[in-house]
């Protein structure tokens, strides 16, 4: 069983939805990324989505686009991201999902990536622009390496696609909360609850909700009907703002994440 599976089991006992936090590797710097992740874990994050930056992040809003640009300017490569994970594994067992667009993985080599990622201590892979229809080749290698391949569902997904994704996915299912790109949003669409119920008719995998989540109030509402709350852009904004000031950065992250983490406990 993977760290991801075990984490969800552990949290079920505790009555908490998993708090999944996204950050782009190499932003503000390759050296800072492991320390930020330790701080996230210490503040209550349960799973890390570690972004592999890409030059053309088509599904991302401006916040994550700029984070990718900064990370690439800092020389972040796929190999560099895996090195970060190896380093983290000396200190932490927090589940890590490698999150990105297909081309850098493809260019690295799907088999080579799967093997190297497993050896580095990565637990799962999520490729934004790889729907199940195109994922057969990657899945052969991620399966062999024991990595979870996480797929997305969206408010536009039909029942047919919910079935298809449920069959192919492992680890958990990432439900995109809005038809749109990544980024913070003042209002969330809580009709997602019925969508989560429909997904659960097809799979026993946990379902997490992301895109636009930025406040404890939003997190608390999602935690009541989903298994994971996923936060990205709002965290990146903090990194963007305090990037070069470690002390302030850690203070802000700690405050922000512990607030969200508390909100993830159901009926709290």
């Amino acid at each position, binding site marked *: 069983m993977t760290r991801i599976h075990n984490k969800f089991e552990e949290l079920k006992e505790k009555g908490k939805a998993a708090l999944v936090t996204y950050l782009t590797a190499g932003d503000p710097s390759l050296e800072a990324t492991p320390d930020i992740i330790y701080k996230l874990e210490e503040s209550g994050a349960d799973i890390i989505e570690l972004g592999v930056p890409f030059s053309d992040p088509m599904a991302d809003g401006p916040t994550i686009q700029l984070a990718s640009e900064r990370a690439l300017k800092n020389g972040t490569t796929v190999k560099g991201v895996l090195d970060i994970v190896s380093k983290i594994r000396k200190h932490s067992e927090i589940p890590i999902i490698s999150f990105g667009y297909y*081309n*850098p993985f493809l260019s690295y080599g799907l088999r080579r990536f799967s093997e190297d990622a497993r050896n580095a201590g990565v637990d799962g892979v999520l490729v934004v622009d790889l729907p199940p229809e195109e994922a057969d080749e990657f899945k052969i290698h991620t399966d062999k390496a024991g990595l979870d391949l996480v797929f997305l569902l969206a408010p536009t997904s039909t029942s047919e696609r919910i079935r298809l*994704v449920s069959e192919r996915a492992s680890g958990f299912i990432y439900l995109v909360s809005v038809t749109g790109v990544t980024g913070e949003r003042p209002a969330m669409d809580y009709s997602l609850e019925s969508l989560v119920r429909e997904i659960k008719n097809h799979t026993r995998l946990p379902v997490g909700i992301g895109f636009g989540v930025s406040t404890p109030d939003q997190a608390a509402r999602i935690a009541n009907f989903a298994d994971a709350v996923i936060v990205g852009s709002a965290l990146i904004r903090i990194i963007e703002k305090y990037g070069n000031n470690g002390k302030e950065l850690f203070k802000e992250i700690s405050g922000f994440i512990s607030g969200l983490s508390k909100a993830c406990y159901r009926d709290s």
Partner: protein
Amino acid sequence: MKPKLKLPDELGHYGIYGGRYVSETLMPALLDLERAYLEIKDDPKFKEEVNYYLREYAGRPTPLYFAERMTNELGGAKIYLKREDLAHTGAHKINNTIGQALLASRMGKRRIIAETGAGQHGVATATVAALLKMECEIFMGLEDTKRQALNVVRMKLLGAKLREVALGTQTLKDAMNEAMRDWITNVRTTFYIIGSVAGPHPYPMMVRDFQSVIGEESKRQIIEKERRLPDLLIACVGGGSNAMGLFYPFLEHESVKMLGVEAAGLGLETGEHAATLYAGRPGVLHGSKTYLLQNEDGQVKGTHSIAPGLDYPGVGPEHSYLKDSGRVSYTTVTDKDALEGFKFLSEKEGIIPALESAHAVAYTTRVAPTMPKDSIIIICLSGRGDKDIQVVAKALGMGV
């Protein structure tokens, strides 16, 4: 290997290329679009409607003009120009936008978006939007809005809203990223008219089908004039829609050779070019697997060409397939040589070509003299050069 003619397969693959590499939010829309397109593409009513607008509105068929002075000057093969520059809006792009806009209309979508590089596809989209009373937004890189200022004004006059893209390279690639992001956000109400044989399935197939009118007419016209098929077809390739449109109906005729001309920019050795098929390797961008200009870590490279319509790091997936199969050859022409081609056609034939098409003209001036006098070349003259006057004047030191 002998290329297959009936492509793509049911998942939109051309051999290992093509497919649908998009986020889940767009998958249902692409499946809907494919279903809608397959349902009506052979519907006689829809075909008649498309043909009506191509004929009465866009001015088709365009002439296949025997370029006698160019032929004599070069002293080799007989050269014919397929005059897409004479189609309404001044380029082949209208063939595709009429088809897609009528499809959008049938699907009940009232808002259309498009990306544009040279502005030709933007103008052609804004034109059909005006014609069919649709809301229209065009995404264009900031750098391109500067070098194609004339087309920016045309789009605005046609009632389109222009969205300048100041991200990344500020050219066609980033215009397409932004158009994709808009589509992800507004997918329920919006139809995205992609302007080349690129993007996720079904776009490469659909755009090829709509552009095939170029090759079908050319075939009919050359048989009328010469009583035989041509020996060589030449077209410029950025995304590759004018080339695909000319080539596709001839693929079944093995005697007809085909040549796609990519932009070598400042020279292949400088790295400042857009010669995707020549210098790229297979990758995934904008929804399909295809040759891609990328660095060793899979990041997409910036490109350069004097012709904004060719200034793109990817290429239509079917071109990747045709290259690997050997059925079509691909070559390159520099900015400098394209300018020579531009001047040559203007002076010899009184036709000012688009800088994109000038790449095809330039290569023809090299290859035609090596061919026998009874052989026949057809060049796709994909657009006219009015939009490029400022850039060319500057490059030639003429000043406007």
